């Protein structure tokens, strides 16, 4: 019984950590796709950029880890503004097919560019000592980096929820997404608003890529390989909310970890079955609104 309880604690902790990893690498997409309604499959490109910024700055400069995380957020956000103004803004009104084709093209270009600059091997993550090893908590030992990840994600979720649900900016974004012409006619500068929101989503992608780099290795094919996980989180969570992807990520994190622990022979099979079942039950996602 004690062994079972102990494994239950393990599964709960690791499920939470895994859910948070999924959420952290997908939250940027929850903003651009979930909130702004842009099918941005190239989300992983921004995440990869953030990951490379973190790994390169830890490897080649002496800036501390938190500063490297901040750099990943701001540099990717700034870079995305250029892309948004020159490319993305033209497709806000376009159909989903155009958006998907455009962003897929962007992925292939980014993969080739990354290979040219960084080579094909994975980028090493040189974490500072204080977030490595095990962290004693309630008489047990937990992997420090995962504890750190859960704490950071928690703070991020709280900040994001507050921003979207409780600030003027959040209200403006929600208004503009629901009805852009009406928002414009009451005096909201939707163009600037969308640019800022897109920068936030991309910055979060960059931050997610950087935070997750220790667990989900950064290499040129990153945007393609992780795409399926982002899409699962956002699709199961449902568009138009930030709460949905969080619940979806946690649900997948817990169930996937539990299944792999107790029934390892089924492997990664479960995550896909769960996705299919959830989408059959609620085609718009857990918290999706019918459009």
């Amino acid at each position: 019984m004690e062994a079972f309880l102990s494994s239950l604690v393990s599964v709960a902790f690791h499920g939470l950590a895994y859910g948070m990893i999924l959420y952290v690498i997908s939250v940027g997409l929850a903003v651009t796709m979930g909130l702004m309604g842009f099918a941005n499959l190239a989300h992983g490109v921004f995440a990869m950029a953030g990951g490379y910024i973190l790994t390169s700055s830890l490897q080649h400069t002496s800036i501390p880890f938190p500063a490297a995380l901040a750099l990943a957020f701001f540099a990717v956000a700034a870079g995305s503004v250029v892309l948004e103004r020159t490319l993305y803004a033209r497709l806000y009104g376009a159909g989903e097919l155009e958006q998907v084709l455009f962003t897929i093209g962007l992925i292939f270009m980014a993969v080739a560019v990354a290979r040219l600059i960084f080579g094909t091997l994975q980028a090493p993550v040189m974490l500072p000592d204080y977030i490595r090893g095990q962290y004693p908590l309630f008489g047990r030992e937990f992997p420090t980096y995962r504890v750190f990840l859960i704490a950071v994600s928690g703070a991020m979720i709280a900040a994001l929820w507050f921003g979207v649900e409780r600030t003027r900016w959040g209200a403006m974004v929600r208004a503009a997404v629901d009805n852009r012409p009406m928002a414009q006619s009451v005096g909201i500068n939707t163009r600037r608003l969308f640019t800022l929101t897109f920068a936030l989503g991309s910055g979060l992608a960059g931050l997610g890529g950087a935070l997750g780099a220790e667990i989900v290795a950064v290499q040129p094919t990153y945007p393609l390989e992780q795409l399926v996980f982002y899409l699962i989180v956002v699709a199961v969570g449902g568009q138009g909310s930030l709460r949905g992807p969080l619940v979806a990520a946690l649900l997948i994190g817990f169930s996937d970890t539990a299944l792999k622990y107790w029934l390892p022979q089924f492997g990664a099979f479960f995550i896909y079955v769960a996705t299919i079942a959830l989408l059959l039950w609620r085609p718009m996602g857990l918290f999706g609104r019918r459009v």
Partner: protein
Amino acid sequence: MQIKPAACLAALALAVCAGAASAQTIKIGVISTYSGPLAAQGDQLDKGFKLYLKLNGDKLPAGVKIEPIFRDDTGPNPDVAKRLAQELIVRDKVQFLVGTVWTPNAAAIAPLTKEAKVPFISANAAGVNIPYLSPYFARVSFTLWQSAYPLGQWAAKKYKRVYTAVSDFAPGHEAEEGFITGFKSGGGEIVGSVRIPLANPDFVPYMQRIKDAKPDALFAFNPAGKQATAMMKTYSDLGLAKDGIKYIGTGDITTDEELQGMGDVALGVITAHHYSAAAERPANKAFVAAYKKEYGENLFPGFMVVGAWDAMDAIFHAIREQKGKVDPDRTMALLRQYKNPNSPRGPIALDPDTRDIVQNEYLREVRRVGGALANVELETLATMIKDPFKELKGKK
């Protein structure tokens, strides 16, 4: 129409020159992976081929020239590999085929080499039955049994209980079976085996399960790179090392080219393999120095570079022995007797019966040497070992 005599003369000279050149030119079709998500492996083969040609291109009978023709199979795509081989044989009329990272690609080429009588040398594709697929196949790379089986025998002397965790694809299955067979033959007990999907973002549940089973050692096989690194990181994060669970595997999990990117989590991992860039042999030191000079001071050649290097050496051997006039059946007879006491990986030979590689297997430990991580060779685990699968399970 007015004919210009000068142009006519030039055309004639060109034709004569071309004729003279083709009589002495031996074409080698190289099929490897240059694009797509898995181009990293193809890049290793490519570097080996090109380094060999650059350093040894002149060591041929007088007047004989090599013309390599590189083709991209884009990954494990047997249909593409087959089409490329067909084009190389029919249109380019190559006398040799060499390459393929992937076993399915080599298998797809097999019937063509048999029909057209074009010798193919596997520089990497390691599926156990590859040399049986065509009488014109030879392999200079390795099989997973070659490293996993002696490692199992060695582990049985050191550990009582071992857990195995391998990636769920053919090489993983072969490594698992080879290790378990060797380990059980020495009286060891397997406390559990798990096969992990290739697309697996989180190893925690598997590692936690292994930690709770409290084995003496964990035998691991994943493709080198992010999979192997992620599993080692999780092993270290969950404190399996502190519980006294040793991490062992075939050399595929700590390849020399990926090792630097894996970081300190790889320290102390024990592996068995046929090649390490850190080996002290003079031939290897010269090889590594040439590699670094050509491709960069911080890069280390992995076992695939050596596979490609030795494949070219086998082809050059066949060309030299026939003084440039190559005949496929004579080539295969020469390859069966091929021996090289001074490969970067030590002495190698081809088994005359199976046309498969015979080589040493070394026991290595990952250590920090002069600021870089290295697979330091501890001892020779098996001397000139033939593929144990064929030895144990009989020949087809």
